[in-house]
């Protein structure tokens, strides 16, 4: 035996018995369920303590029910594809370890809320991306294009560092109760997407973006619920960034 066998998951390690309760919907219908009907499906899988919720979903899809639909790409918390509601909280399935959950009860997995569900855990992300496009998420510099890089001091870079971490997973926007209600709100992600450019010293489009966010569907709909800050898998202080945008609008200083 080598030293690695103590830490790496091996086939004889004690398994974790995990019950998954997954909210499902099939637009084409199944023999038991009408097209578009929402229902709960339960699966029991044996996993390791080092496994994540995504691994359990893979096991279900690969060994129990191949019709289960969910998104994932990198599976390491970078691409932002597998945001879902796990035990009632928006999380990336690839970042939640099974050993951190209460396995005495089934682990509930639902699609993120506020966006139209297409199948099982897959939602239509278009309204979310439409909000992001509206705040013009690209550098709008003023003046001549320089021969070399646009320079910035470390302090100027630090000003918007936090909001550059966003991976557009929609965990924040789909955790926001204001976003759930009427579909009019930009949502937290579009606001921090704007924040990233508004407070960038190289960008001169800040007032264009601030005027968009001064709209009735803009920052004023935020009630500082803090769900977004709790949901962000990147640890972005979302509510604080939104408040900084509000402050820029009320004081007129960026």
């Amino acid at each position, binding site marked *: 035996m080598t030293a690695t066998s103590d830490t790496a998951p091996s086939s004889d390690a004690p398994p974790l018995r995990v019950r998954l309760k997954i909210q499902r919907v099939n637009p084409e219908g199944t023999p038991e369920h009408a097209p578009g009907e929402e229902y709960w499906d339960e699966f029991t899988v044996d996993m390791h303590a080092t496994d994540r919720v995504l691994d359990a979903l893979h096991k279900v899809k690969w060994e129990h029910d191949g019709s289960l639909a969910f998104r994932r790409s990198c599976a390491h918390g970078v691409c932002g594809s597998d945001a879902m509601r796990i035990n009632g909280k928006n999380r990336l399935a690839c970042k939640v370890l099974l050993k951190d959950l209460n396995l005495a009860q089934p682990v509930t997995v639902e699609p993120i809320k506020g966006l139209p569900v297409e199948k099982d855990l897959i939602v239509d992300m*278009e309204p979310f991306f439409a909000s992001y496009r509206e705040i013009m998420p690209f550098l709008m510099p003023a003046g001549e294009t320089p021969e070399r890089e646009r320079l910035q001091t470390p302090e100027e870079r630090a000003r918007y560092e936090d909001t550059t971490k966003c991976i557009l997973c929609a965990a924040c926007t789909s955790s926001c109760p204001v976003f759930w209600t009427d579909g009019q709100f930009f949502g937290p992600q579009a606001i921090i997407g704007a924040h990233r450019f508004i407070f960038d010293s190289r960008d001169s489009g800040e007032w264009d973006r601030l005027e968009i966010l001064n709209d009735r569907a803009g920052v*004023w709909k935020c009630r500082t619920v803090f769900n977004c800050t709790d949901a962000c898998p990147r640890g972005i202080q979302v509510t604080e960034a939104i408040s900084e945008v509000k402050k820029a609008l009320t004081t007129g200083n960026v």
Partner: protein
Amino acid sequence: MNAPSLTPPRFARSPRTSHHVEKWSWILMRVSGAILIVLIFTHLFVNLMTGDGINAIDFAFVAGKWAQPLWQWWDAAMLWLGMFHGTNGMRVLVNDYARTETSRRVLKALLALAFIVTVVLGTLVIFTFDPCPIGANPDLLPSFCESVS
């Protein structure tokens, strides 16, 4: 090969407003809230904690207070700011939760009606209040009524 055609997004946002209504609603909500804390707790302290406390409150007590311009304006400010704060809060809730344009309009119209009726009636009562109605039992009236009659 042709570029794929894109369908427009399913959520259409309502048209932009240019008067910054929501910004001023947000600012005034916070300003009125901060002022109301002072107004309401002073009001409660004066009415309930000083003198005989709750046992002192009767027609004479209210009439005596409204005979002084300070308490008239104090109560008027509480009425106006409280009504603004509450009505604006309800307006925000209606915007969030009303599902159709018709229900939104109806609820906001009812809200505006309730606001106008309460503010107009309340302001009239505060500033036209007669502390010494003729023919009333003098035991129930404030003490300064004796010199008037």
